[in-house]
């Protein structure tokens, strides 16, 4: 218990305390810096920081598209694996799950090579059939990052949903089938509602993950200017803390992000709860 207290509550408390302070300097800034109580100034600054807000909005757009797409694939895969007519289940499952076993950094490095003109066999192949793509272009790069995330996490989410499916009593489905229900009906009317809690769980985790996106855009940033240094909220917090040397403001940004995450996750859970009823 103590350890949870130490490594969860204290940092959070310290972050809040930090976020209420500001560093003071004077003149040319050579002398020693002091600190003062700044109240909510840092928060006001965060809410007016266009790039930070843009980063949060970007992640919302990202989440609204990427999370459903990923979970849709995860669900379809899980249902197929659970059904009687998929072949080579073990092999396909292993393949789908493999990307999760790769460290996020490795996945990002790997895909960034596949996005790089002149190196990527994908771009070369597309060029051969006269399709020009720029995976790192200003409007495309976000979805290139989304692809890395989808690639990495679909298998993981599939596993959670699949496990839930496996745990269901299968004789119900058999009974339903004998009663003449189609495979489609069994899936939508019985299986999906029963594993809805698992799906919601994966959705909440994915939303949180989205808001914390860091390593993928950090790697991609080394290849293109279109990923700015405040591209995602987490990048903003890190770069403000160390790049711009402003831990107080960084703390405010981080706490703001935490509040956002709470609102979104709880909002989502409330919403789905209501629907369930």
């Amino acid at each position, binding site marked *: *218990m*103590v*350890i949870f207290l130490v490594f969860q509550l204290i940092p959070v408390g310290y972050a809040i305390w930090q976020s209420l302070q500001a*560093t*003071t*300097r*004077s*003149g*040319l*800034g*050579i002398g*020693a*810096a002091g600190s003062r109580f700044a109240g909510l100034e840092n928060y006001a*600054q965060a809410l007016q920081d266009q*790039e930070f807000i843009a980063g949060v909005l970007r992640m919302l757009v990202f989440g609204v598209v990427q999370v459903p797409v990923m979970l849709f694939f995860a669900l379809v895969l899980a249902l197929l694996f659970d059904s009687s007519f998929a072949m080579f289940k073990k092999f396909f499952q292993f393949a789908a799950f493999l990307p999760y076993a790769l460290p996020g950094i490795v996945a990002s490095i790997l895909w960034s090579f596949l996005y*790089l*003109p*002149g*190196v990527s066999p994908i771009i070369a192949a597309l060029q051969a059939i006269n399709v020009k793509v720029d995976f*790192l272009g*200003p409007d495309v790069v976000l979805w290139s990052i989304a692809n890395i995330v989808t690639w990495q996490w679909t298998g993981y989410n599939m596993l959670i949903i699949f496990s839930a499916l496996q745990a269901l009593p299968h004789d119900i489905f058999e009974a339903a089938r004998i009663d003449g229900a189609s495979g489609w009906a069994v899936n939508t009317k019985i299986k999906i509602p029963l594993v809805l809690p698992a799906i919601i769980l994966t959705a909440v985790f994915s939303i949180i993950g989205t808001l914390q996106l860091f390593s993928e855009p950090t790697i991609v940033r*080394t*290849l*293109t*200017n*279109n990923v*700015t*240094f*405040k591209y995602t909220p987490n990048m903003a917090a890190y*770069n403000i803390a*160390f*790049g*711009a*040397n402003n*831990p107080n403001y960084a703390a405010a940004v981080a706490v703001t992000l935490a509040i956002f995450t709470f609102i979104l996750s709880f909002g989502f859970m409330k919403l789905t709860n209501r629907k369930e009823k």
Partner: protein
Amino acid sequence: MSEESKKRLNRRKFITLTGGALAAAGLLAACGDNTVAPASATTAAGAGATTTAAGAGATTAAAGGTATTAAATGATTAAGAATAAGTNTSGVTIEYWSWVLGSKESVDLWNRTHTNFKVNYTQTTSGTPHYNKVKAAVAAGSGGPDLAQIEFQLVTSLVVGGALQPITQEAAPYKAKFIDWTIQQVTLGNDIYAIPQDIGPMGLFYRKDIFDQYSLAVPKTWEEYKAAAEKLHAADPTKYIASFSPAQPGQFAGFAWSNKAKWFGTKGDAWQVTINSAETKKVADYWQDLITRKLVKVEADFNPAWYKDLLDGNIATWVGAVWGAGTLATNAAGASGKWAVAYLPQWTAGSKVSGNWGGSTVAVIKGSKHVKEAVEFGAWLNSDPGPVGEMIKGNNIYPATKDGGSLPVLKQPNPYFSGQVINDIFTESAGNVDPSWTWGPTIDQVYADIGDQFTASTNGSGTLSSALDQAQAKTVADLKSKGLQVTQ
């Protein structure tokens, strides 16, 4: 004792024991830790002995550059004996962080030839990762280097950020060796904060083969450069005169510098900010025109795709700095014999103004207990022909010392450039660098802002010029919010 209370007691015991397990875990890990940080232990132990040994070291070095050099060369021959003795008379080991290739060899050279203290070298990743690590170590108050590579533009920012130590006294004996404007750039108020290592006088790298193929004349002015851009792109739409990387404010600052612009200045105890001055805007408008007319390729530099363009000749010139010769030779090795160097194009025909892009220093990091040793090593590293030669070999640096330009190694024909003595051009350029350029106190922020705003404008919202206005406003606001004074 009732069954119920026994249970409760046991539960408490269980929870306590959980805590015990944690403590044990901590101990276990702590033991592991001891084995990994012997360096800091030595440092702490050696701290007492420091002053005397360092004093001796400093005097020897102060006796004169040539003497040190001679001693160094002499000692190199006797290196075997020195290493065998394993001498480190003061017991001091300083930690040095850099990304410059050739640094490791230089450190090895020091450790072979000097016995008063040792240097431990750590290779870092250049740019943001390096500085973030340094700042993190300063914030942590431990684990940082004594001496670290710091680029010129960041020295002031790091001083204001509280990451560097003043070394005015320790550096006094060496000061005169370095080019005056480089010393100026590492001086803030009355104190010196770093030892200059190399400078980046600018020049024009161009593809001789492509210039010949399309019979382009090597441009002497920016006017001619634009004409060449038009001619080349018209002849072959897949080819561009250059790439423009919106997130490379260092290069853009160099452009502005060579148009005698200034971004920062000090007046008494206050900062002046002039990022959107007429001189800088002239440069911005020029490149904006090339971008709008698609005569330059907008792309990030220093990544494999850009290197491929340099190699394949999709971009025919690169307005770079002296160290760029190394960049080309390493990353576009296949284009050997195709590149050449010319003097930086001018705004006014006949003039010879130049700017500086890059170049760096070594600075003593806050928290170091071995300032004297760090400065002694830093001064040796940046001025002695031994280590300077290693870094020229490794990274094609151009030394910041007054007599550095006349090193024989810099006067040799460069095989990559078909035997051209490229440093003849860069030495001339170095002599014409406008000495009055000043770096501001929040350069990370400025660079990030300019980079992001330029990226936005090359993606179609606004112009480079309007981006400069925004960067100006943001920088002034940022300085004020930090409590710094800003004046007109």
